[in-house]
């Protein structure tokens, strides 16, 4: 019996899905990345993967707060799915939307004038996640979808 147990695919034992709706507030950037870390904790992810994922989620939620809602009020939806050892994250806002997505994804492009805004959010998401898809409707909002295959910490 033990042999059958150990031969069972490990990956999908931890399949799971959660959705959270949160107010667009900068303190929720911390909350969002803490939730994703707790969500993937059961599969004991590699420390580098964990840092990459936390950073990518932090970037996506920050974008929603500062660009989507321009630091104003709004709701941000966060959906996380774990399937066969792959994490799928969707971050949605109902804010202003992005007029030129390919421009927004360019490194160091920013619509903000402050000297200390890096404009690196999408670049970081792309480097840290396997795939990043951005869809946006002007005046309706933006959805960022990210996938990452997780490697177990050995």
């Amino acid at each position: 019996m033990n042999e059958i147990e150990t031969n069972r695919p490990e990956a999908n034992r931890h399949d799971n899905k959660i959705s959270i709706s949160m107010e667009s507030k900068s303190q929720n950037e911390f909350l969002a990345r803490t939730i994703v870390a707790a969500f993937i904790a059961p599969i004991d992810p590699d420390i580098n993967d964990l840092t990459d994922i936390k950073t990518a989620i932090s970037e996506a939620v920050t974008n929603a707060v500062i660009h989507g809602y321009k630091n104003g009020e709004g709701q941000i939806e966060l959906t996380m799915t774990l399937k066969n050892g792959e994490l799928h994250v969707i971050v949605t806002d109902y804010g202003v939307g992005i007029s030129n997505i390919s421009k927004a994804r360019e490194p160091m492009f920013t619509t903000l004038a402050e000297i200390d805004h890096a404009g690196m959010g999408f670049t970081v998401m792309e480097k840290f996640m396997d795939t990043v898809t951005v869809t946006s409707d002007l005046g309706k909002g933006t959805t960022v979808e990210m996938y990452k295959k997780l490697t177990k910490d050995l």
Partner: protein
Amino acid sequence: MHYKHSGKALYIQLEGEIDHHTTKGLKEKIARAFEPTDCRQMIFDLSRVTFMDSSGIGMIIGRYKNAQERGGTVAITGMNPGIERIFQISGLAKIINSYASVEDAEKALGESVQ
């Protein structure tokens, strides 16, 4: 955040998680620490920082510009591997030097910190 100034250098020790939420306060604190002095260099100690995203990169770029206006620069010390990764990926590593320790940064900056 803890800081001290000595000679021409402002030493800034950051701790915890650095993101858009926390950089808002840090920018003000660093400005208040830097502006009244005649410091030219800023030496950041990140050894107690556990998380940093691109908002932290932006915050450092802004401080680099402040230091440049006085003919100085910024040095980064004590990065953990996760922070090192975003430091490289963001391109910040091309403009700002990093060192294992504050002492190493002081050695590299030489007389300009005195």
